[in-house]
């Protein structure tokens, strides 16, 4: 049954269905509605957990870390400045192999200060050692949040569920929440092999010298690669219970004879889909929804892009001085394959600039045009350059 829920409210319900023992929260737009809804669920006794309102995101991440190590399923959420403030702890959580779930309500990073959506925040934490899953709809946000707990606990890896700020978090949409029985069936009670227990003392977070450091990093890397299969399995298992999958590591849609592909992350997938529906006179093209940025699904990507002549990678972030971040990773995945398509790196929708349905035409024009070499910002307004630096 579909019920109309704001994205944040839907995520809050999904978190509650996972029965966390500890939720740590510090507010930042556009994540606020998520932690507010959870607080209300706790106040109404619909969720029994320790709700810890901390004094910073640094402590939010840390409280969740301490709680997970002390035997509780733990959750937090943030965005943008908050995510960057957490950065040191996020690397630490991953290196300690702590199973945690966090929502990142993706938002631009200051300066210039801007509260609207893009993906710069999560991209900056790409190398922190967390699994990063991007959601294309509120339904996916619900389903991915619940799946994330199972993944984290099975793999002993933290999972960041990325949802576009405002576009998903603040949009009311008809969604289906699984029942508590379904979630309980899917997600067993929390266990963590290294739980702190005074009857079985463990030392966690020790100093590691050069003689062991590389091997511990290697094991982390291996666990991330193993996560690729686990993401598919968990998505399939969830579909077995609820009837809904979220696209595994990536999802491809479009006619078999298409020679053009468009790869994107997050909610812009819906816009591009709709744009393609409305522009039927344009050449056929496949849409590739990249759900897992970390681990990066190289093999699945090579398969998804096989037979294409041109692929546009459309991103809501870039690395100043280097261009598209995901585009570079796609190039790396394809390098050396026999029929490598041309990769066109495109950026749009920074700092919340709306991506309209017409973006589809621009993207296809880019795919059909000459190679541009560098990353192209498709929605740059040259007139605005004259207003100077904010």
């Amino acid at each position, binding site marked *: 049954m579909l019920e109309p829920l704001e994205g944040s409210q839907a995520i809050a319900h999904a978190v509650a269905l996972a029965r966390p*023992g*500890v939720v*740590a929260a510090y507010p930042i737009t556009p994540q606020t509605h998520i932690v507010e809804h959870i607080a209300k669920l706790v106040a109404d006794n619909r969720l029994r*957990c*320790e709700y*810890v*309102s*901390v*004094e*910073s995101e*640094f*402590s939010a991440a*840390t*409280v*969740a*870390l*301490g*709680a*997970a*190590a*002390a*035997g*509780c399923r*733990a959750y937090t959420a943030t965005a943008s400045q908050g995510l960057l403030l957490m950065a*040191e*702890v996020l690397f*630490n959580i991953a290196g*300690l192999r702590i199973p945690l779930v966090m929502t990142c309500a993706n938002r631009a990073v200051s300066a210039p200060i801007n509260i609207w959506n893009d993906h710069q925040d999560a991209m900056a934490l790409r190398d922190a050692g967390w699994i990063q899953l991007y959601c294309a709809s509120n339904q996916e946000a619900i389903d991915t949040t619940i799946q994330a707990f199972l993944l984290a606990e099975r793999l002993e890896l933290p999972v960041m569920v990325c949802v576009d700020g405002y576009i998903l978090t603040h949009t009311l949409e008809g969604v289906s929440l699984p029942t508590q029985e379904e979630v309980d069936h899917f997600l067993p009670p929390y266990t963590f092999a290294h739980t*702190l*227990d*005074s009857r*079985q*003392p*463990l*030392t*966690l*977070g*020790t*100093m*590691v*010298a050069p003689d*062991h450091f590389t091997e511990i990093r290697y094991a982390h890397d291996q666990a991330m690669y193993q996560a690729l299969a686990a993401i598919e399995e968990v998505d399939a298992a969830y579909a077995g219970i609820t009837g809904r999958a979220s696209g595994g590591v990536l999802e491809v849609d479009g006619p078999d004879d298409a020679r053009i592909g468009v790869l994107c992350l997050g909610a812009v997938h819906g816009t591009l889909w709709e744009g393609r529906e409305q522009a039927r006179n344009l050449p056929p093209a496949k849409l590739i929804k990249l759900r897992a940025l970390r681990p990066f699904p190289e093999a699945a990507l090579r398969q998804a892009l096989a037979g294409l002549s041109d692929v546009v990678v459309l991103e809501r972030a870039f690395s100043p001085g280097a261009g598209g971040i995901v585009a570079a990773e796609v190039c790396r995945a394809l390098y050396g394959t026999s029929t490598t398509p041309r990769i066109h790196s495109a950026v749009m929708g920074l700092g919340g600039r709306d991506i309209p349905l017409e973006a589809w035409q621009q993207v296809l024009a880019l795919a059909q045009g000459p190679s541009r070499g560098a990353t192209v910002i498709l929605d740059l307004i040259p007139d605005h350059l004259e207003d100077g630096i904010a």
Partner: protein
Amino acid sequence: MNNTAALRDMSSIRQQQSRFEGLTPGHRACQGCGQALAARLVLESSGPDVVVANATGCLEVFTTAWPQSAWTIPWMHSVFSNTAALAAGMEAAFKARDISTKVLAFAGDGGTFDIGFQALSGMIERGHNVLFVCYDNEAYMNTGVQRSSSTPVAAATTTSPAGIARTGKRHLKKDIVAIIAAHCMPYAATASVAYPNDLKDKVRRGIQTPGPAFLMIHSPCPLGWMHDSAKGIEVARLGVETGLVPLIEMEYGQQTSAMPLRRVRPVVDYLKPQGRFRHLFADDPMARQELAHLQALADHNIAHYGLQESQPESGDSHAAASVRRGTVAVVPPGAV
């Protein structure tokens, strides 16, 4: 029984007493490290039903060279500045799971006064049932003796060196206990490794406090303070006896005890054995001024905390030993 036999008897009684060893020997602290001794005493007093969140710093580094560990209690280190929040998370989980294990947080003065202060303030404000122990060696020792906001005025460190234009650190030691106590703190106390019984007693009181508690332990660092590593206890005791290191307890913002000084020593007795104050004994007006400044700070402490005992007890071997409690009746705010 003659005296020697009595002593032998005492020491065998002591050895027979089971003492919980939470921090075992074989770790890599410098010889005479006050912090290593203090941590051992804290756990001896707490017993095994604890979990420790430990900040980055000497204590973390010298006890946990992977794959070895000197700890026999569950122990976790995350990063430098988040220790109080780590402890808070553990405590929240234990609360959710209905587990009574006490959570302890360990940090150096850097991890308490400076970079860890925000998380500490937040943990206290939220009322987590955590005993936070600060091992105060008055500088960032792990990174090579840089000044912290706990470093005493005029002490030389590698970032507050003495020279012709400077007499060491130019700023006062932060009064962290007053700041902590101002959080309407159920229990905040100071202790010194020179007074182990008092220290252990304060650990017990901190553990019995059903909310946040804070204990700061003055812990000599022979490397950073530049004193003979066999003289740590002596140096620590002089700190107390001069009034520079007041041993007090605060409950809900009010002072409820002080260790009285039966014989007050001049601050130079404390400063002289320590290389970090060597420059203060040069024939230099700036140095003389700083010495007078330090003496004035000690005099202020003695008056402010009521440290001086009017009637020195006869036959005392030490100038300070037992604590007077119960001089102030404390009613927690809100209690009627």
